[in-house]
């Protein structure tokens, strides 16, 4: 799975884009966020409060209860500020 991080989430995780292999425990976006959170301080900070995190699957906005699968492009970012 390809994961993208934007703006403050990129700053906190220190990662812009990465390819990961999903552990079997990850079924939804919420599961994915929980797993990412365990990967270190930056990730813990980035996903500390999911109310401030937005997500997209394959470039469409998605809520955290939506299932994810290998092959998806998932993105995490803060609420947009507009142009």
């Amino acid at each position, binding site marked *: 799975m390809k994961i993208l991080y*934007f*703006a403050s989430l990129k700053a906190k995780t220190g990662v812009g884009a990465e390819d990961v292999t999903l552990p079997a425990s990850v079924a939804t976006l919420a599961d994915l966020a929980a797993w990412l959170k365990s990967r270190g301080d930056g990730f813990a900070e980035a996903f500390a409060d999911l109310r401030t995190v937005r997500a997209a699957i394959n470039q469409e906005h998605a809520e955290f209860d939506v299932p994810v699968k290998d092959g998806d492009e998932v993105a995490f970012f*803060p609420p947009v500020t507009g*142009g």
Partner: protein
Amino acid sequence: MAVRVQEADFDVGTEFNRFTQGRVDLGGVALFVGLVRGDGQSVSAMTLEHYPGMTERQLEAIEAEARKRWKLDDALIVHRAGRMLPGERIVLVMTGSAHRKDSLEACHFLIDWLKTKAPFWKFEEGPLGGKWVDAKETDDAAAKRWGE
């Protein structure tokens, strides 16, 4: 109908001339140009980050929505990303229609959406360093005007 997201600056005259070239069906063209505002003190530069691909799709979707709500003969959105200084152009919205009301309202609708809902994230640099800007409540109020 066209949507472009680019790092490069755009030229308003060039875009307008291309938009209207050879047409006699347009009674009016409404434009809005958003600029980086700065008092020279608090904000010295602004960077817009975006999600290439997703951004263009969302901009195309909102342009299609504007065409559904108003009678437009043509529309254009040019949005810059990257680092910009005070005075620089950020975004251009242009709408053309037979009657001015359609183009004016559609232009207002599009820029309200772009300024509040478009998938961009703003990083501002000032004398104390830089920070990612939080989403604003007041701008959401402007979008609500349009029944969202």
